[in-house]
């Protein structure tokens, strides 16, 4: 009987080490958020001085932010772009992922490698040709120009193909026997079964699109089409930025992604683990 406590104490030391390491990691990742929230309550001068306690300038900062920024319009722009881009990306890329896994052909793996190869091309290299395309199509300064290039996402295709490997082919075979067509199988069998994969993809793609900066910056030309990322960037680049106002902007810009994540957290974790229900 003495063996059990001995092994317990033997495990306790690495466990303490694990918790210490995790706490440090948690602190490092949470600290910028804490700093952001604390700073939003301080004046710009206090923020520069590095004041790390709550101040009384919060309402003033909020008022200044709302005075300088057309908040409803900017959020409407960001939400429109992010939600539409997310839905389109998931629709197109999950179809592709499904196709790549389900249909066998000689060219399949070559085509798939080609898709993956595009992951290695940095966006900066595509930017100018894309910009010229959008210019010729007359889409400069439209929100549709932001979403079109993101819809076929190699990463999400890859993600769906990997997840589809766990999809039981028996289900598809059974559905076929029952007389369902391929699109019906996809829509009525695959999508509901893979819903946690979809949820995880939604969180990832939504974050990518909400935080998208470089491409919207290049394409958007006027104040009334700008998204929140561009507005915050503009506020922060003043000769004497009001950091209190910038903090309010970053908090508001962060909230939607946080919200999406917390709402879908359970499905997200399940989806990342690749579970099929």
């Amino acid at each position, binding site marked *: 009987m003495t063996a059990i406590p001995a092994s317990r104490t033997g495990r306790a030391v690495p466990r303490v080490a694990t918790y210490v390491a995790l706490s440090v990691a948690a602190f490092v990742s949470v600290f910028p958020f804490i700093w952001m929230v604390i700073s939003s309550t301080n004046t710009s001068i206090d923020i520069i001085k590095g004041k790390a306690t709550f101040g009384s300038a919060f309402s003033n900062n909020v008022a200044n932010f709302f005075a300088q920024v057309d908040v409803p319009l900017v959020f409407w722009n960001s939400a429109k772009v992010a939600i539409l881009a997310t839905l389109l990306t998931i629709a197109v890329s999950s179809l592709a992922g499904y196709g790549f896994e389900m249909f066998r052909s000689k060219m399949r793996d070559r085509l798939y490698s080609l898709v993956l190869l595009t992951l290695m091309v940095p966006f900066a290299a595509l*930017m100018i040709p894309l910009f010229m395309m959008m*210019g010729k199509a007359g889409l400069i300064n439209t929100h*549709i120009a932001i979403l*079109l290039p993101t819809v076929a996402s190699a990463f999400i295709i890859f993600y769906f193909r990997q997840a589809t490997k766990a999809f039981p082919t028996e289900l598809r075979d059974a559905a076929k026997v029952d007389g369902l067509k391929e699109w019906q199988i996809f829509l009525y069998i695959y999508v509901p079964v893979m819903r946690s994969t979809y949820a995880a993809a939604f969180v990832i793609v939504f974050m990518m699109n909400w935080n998208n900066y470089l491409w919207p910056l290049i394409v958007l030309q006027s104040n009334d089409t700008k998204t929140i990322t561009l507005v915050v960037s*503009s506020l922060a680049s003043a000769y004497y930025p009001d950091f209190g106002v910038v903090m309010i902007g970053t908090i508001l810009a962060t909230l939607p992604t946080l919200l999406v994540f917390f709402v879908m957290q359970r499905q997200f974790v399940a989806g990342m683990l690749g579970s099929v229900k």
Partner: protein
Amino acid sequence: MHFQRMSKSFAAVALAGTSFFAATAAFAGEITVWCWDPNFNVAIMKEAGARYTAKHPETTLNIVDFAKADVEQKLQTALTSGTTDALPDIVLIEDYGAQKYLQSFPGAFASMSDTVDYSGFAPYKVKLMTVDDQVYGMPFDSGVTGLYYRKDYLEQAGFKPSDMQDITWDRFIEIGKVVEEKTGKKMLGLDMTDAGFTRILMQSAGQWYFDAEGNLSIENNTALKAALETQQKILKANIHKPAAGWTDWVGTFTSGDVATVTSGVWITGTVKAQADQSGKWGVAPLPSLGIEGATHASNLGGSSWYVVESSPEKKEAIDFLNEVYAKDVPFYQDILTTRGAVGSLMAARTGDAYMLADPFFGGEKVWQNFSDWLSKVPPVNYGIFTNEVDTAVTAHLPSLAQGADIATVLKEIQSQAEGQIQ
């Protein structure tokens, strides 16, 4: 064929979403401007627009604000891709980068030599936007430099304001030693992560990283050499408070820890923001390097307006800039008073705001002084690669503190800069 199909499907999607996707169309009479900083450039351009449209009601101004780096990124993309209809009519460009855009994209910006009387502006501002005798921009805000000093600290150390006039940096260091001994205060904040101070000193002696022909000039640059030597002397005398980065550097004087500030005139607002220090500051001419060609005037930063050659509103845009920025003296009084902006039009100094004696500076007519120095800033060639060379200089500043040999440092900067420019 392929592209046609693609644009057709683009058009179909675009059509389907017209009610949802706002597309803005430029109509005649609207001048679009890109610039940064809502409280400075944007606000000033709005004021300029209001003055112009009051006389020309058919014109409207559409000012779009992006971050400075974003304006540059967008400008670069649109110019590189040749998509000129994606460009605004007027764009703000930082002076250090002007030659890069003018020389890399010949024909992209409109020459205004025929319309604007450039003799009315500070010569160094005109020089930086000149290529092959054509002048391409409208000079805007200046970063003319001065030596801001704490009268109270200097008085405690036994120096009168007259002791600060037209001194050399060697004398500055001597004074600094006495100030530290008598008051315990450091003479200046020194940020070794930024080459701004180095650039101020170099330009004050009429030289830059590039010679008149645009060739890299580091190893034999006597002004740069003297600028680095001066900083090494300051470090050795230990009369500086070290700062890491801009906000830290600003903190050295807002906290009252140092006796002087050397910077562009736009720092005035930050100095004056400390209301409790009112009456304690004075402004003297920049100390001189004491070498051949050395002066008491220099510049740090500043930017100017440029009109896009392919713009359908080109004529109107040039007329607008010329009417306000090249002629409207009351406009310059307004932007000085409300935004602390010092323009480059010499005639502006005749206005009320420039005549004002500022109680913060003990009743000195500081704007008249800055205006004097503005006309004396040595014109230099900012060249195409100022930012690249700046990186090389910044990388070598810390070695000054370790007592590095200046000639060796210059050689290293030269070779690193050559590598970056390739």
